[in-house]
């Protein structure tokens, strides 16, 4: 996380760069706390670093965390959370949520497979069509939510179920393997060890710039912050929401293809709700407001890394899968409590 990026995140919120004006020496500590509170992402970053230090140097798994195999494993846990979160953050900011990317994720590689095997479609075209399918699902979500006025929680729940059904019936609930002619391209999509995290990082940079530095991002925040006001200012609210749903669908499809190439298995039961919930949790841990209006890509990225480090770290130190969930839930709650308390501190800092 670079300093510039931090400042960029601050600018979009209108927070002036740098801390509060200098005061007495006594206030120094408080100023530091307020400053840390202002940089929501900073707290998550500190937690990530502490977790890495713990799993890397202090725990019983010393020596196995920083191996190449484990770092690849860690990155492959983190990348899908990051990429789906990149779709969820703008949606959460404009006051919506998408529960369906996990099901787009399951269906996309099957669509690619069917197109190649049964319809003789060239590999690249099949991949593009699968990605377009994600866009279409996003469009449908937008149509249900914006045009028909169904709350997005229910609308995307519905499309998710429908997609799951389509995946199960079309695949007859059996696994498939990516065709041999697609593996070459597949390596670049998700087959190589660090391919996924590289994509995740590149996409995160793009999404961050779009959210903080373009009209689209500004209007997304405006729609979430004051929908009526945005409409009165002439912003096309429907277009913003449709667009963000479509991006979420597209990213869901992309993750599905990545996982298929990474694991060399196309699994009808892959995806589901879990990736989406991880991503929403990551976004919220990173400071995205569930009620819309604010949120950052950097925060969601760090939140995703945090969840991935936790998952992978407990794996490395050999804790059984059962207590892992307790620790996981606890970590999410602690992160949220810290966030809210720091937000209060932030408000105090602003009032002064």
């Amino acid at each position, binding site marked *: 996380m670079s300093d510039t990026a931090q400042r960029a995140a601050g*600018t*979009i*919120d*209108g*927070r*002036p760069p740098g801390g509060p004006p200098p005061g007495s020496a006594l206030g120094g500590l408080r100023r530091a706390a307020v400053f840390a509170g202002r940089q929501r992402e900073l707290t998550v970053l500190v937690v990530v670093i502490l977790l890495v230090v713990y799993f890397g140097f202090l725990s019983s798994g010393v020596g196995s965390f920083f191996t190449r195999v484990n770092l690849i494993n860690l990155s492959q846990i983190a990348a899908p959370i990051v990429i789906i979160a990149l779709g969820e953050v703008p949606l959460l900011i404009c006051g919506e949520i998408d529960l369906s990317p996990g099901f787009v994720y399951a269906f996309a590689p099957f669509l690619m497979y069917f197109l190649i095997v049964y319809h003789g479609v060239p590999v690249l075209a099949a991949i593009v069509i699968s990605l377009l399918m994600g866009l279409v699902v996003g469009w449908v979500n937008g149509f249900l939510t914006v045009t028909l006025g169904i709350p997005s929680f229910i609308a995307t729940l519905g499309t998710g179920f429908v997609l799951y059904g389509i995946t199960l019936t079309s695949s007859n609930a059996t696994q498939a393997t990516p065709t041999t002619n697609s593996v070459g391209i597949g390596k670049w999509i998700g087959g190589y060890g660090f391919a996924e995290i590289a994509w995740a990082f590149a996409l995160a940079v793009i999404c961050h*710039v779009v959210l903080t*530095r*373009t*009209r689209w991002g*500004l*209007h997304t*925040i*405006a729609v*979430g*912050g*004051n929908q*009526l*006001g*945005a*409409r*009165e*200012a*002439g*912003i096309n609210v429907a277009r913003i929401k449709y667009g963000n749903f479509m991006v979420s669908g597209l990213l869901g499809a992309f993750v599905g293809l990545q996982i298929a190439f990474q694991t060399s298995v196309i699994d009808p039961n892959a995806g589901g709700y879990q990736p989406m919930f991880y991503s929403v949790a990551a976004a919220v841990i990173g400071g995205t407001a569930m009620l819309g*209006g*604010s949120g950052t890509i950097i925060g969601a990225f760090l939140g995703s890394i945090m969840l991935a480090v936790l998952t992978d770290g407990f794996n490395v130190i050999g804790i059984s899968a059962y207590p892992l969930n307790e620790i996981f839930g606890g970590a999410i709650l602690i992160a949220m409590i810290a966030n809210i308390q720091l937000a209060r501190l932030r408000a105090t800092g*602003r009032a002064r």
Partner: protein
Amino acid sequence: MTTADPGGPVWPGDPGWPGETPGQPDGLDDLSVPADVSSGAGTSSWADPNDVLRVEHLSKRFGPLTALVDVNLHLAQGEILGLIGDNGAGKSTLLKILCGFQAPDTGRIVINGQQVALKSVDHARSLGIDAVYQDLALINQLSVYHNMFLNRERVRWPLLNNRSMRQTARRYLDELGVNIPSVDSQVASLSGGQRQAIAVARAVYSDAKILLLDEPLAAMGAKEVALILDVVRDLKRRGDVSIIVIAHNYGQVLEICDRVNLLQHGRIALDKRSSETSVQELNDIVVAEYRRALLERQRPA
């Protein structure tokens, strides 16, 4: 009524402010609009070829609720028209129609002699109509300068030109004498008056030729009221902007407006030049109407 002239305004509370001496020239009257426009609502003779905006037989219903029945209204080049009326008289509805936010059920809107069907806020803006809404349409989570350029952002494709927007916003607000900590501040952290001032500044500097101000003086301290009135007067002197102001304070309306229209039960019930009426008269009409309605309700069925 008041002795105000563009050089020496008289403020509410000052000694010279709304006397009960109607009919006195107020120094803002040197317009080409014919003087015989009073109480001409409903007829067609009031229309003047110089009108930048003309509204004819406008009506609007919301389900069982009739907001506007038959509104006729005109606005001359460089004129400031005060629109008054009690809560629920349909003032805000009329404004939202004029700025393209809502479509009327029936009626004509004529801008610069051309009949138009305002399709959207953007469309109205492209025709030079802009509004400051009662709810201000500010985004709390965004900075002052992003709010001032909302949906009119300066872009160095594909990125926002934040530097240019920041500098210009600062210059505009300085010109208006609006005192805010920084154009980088989140709007959420500002006071009601500051928010109002930013919304007005945004509309004023949007190059609008027809400006619609919905209660621009609500939630303002005395100093901020003076500030906004000064701004309106400035625009008046420039002469290229025509303004419709909705306000509750009749004194302030008569102070800055050339002409006053009273909206009652979805119709224009009174159309007089500011110099020909007074706070007293406007008050009397509104109160009389209230008493009449009250009596009607109390009459045994």
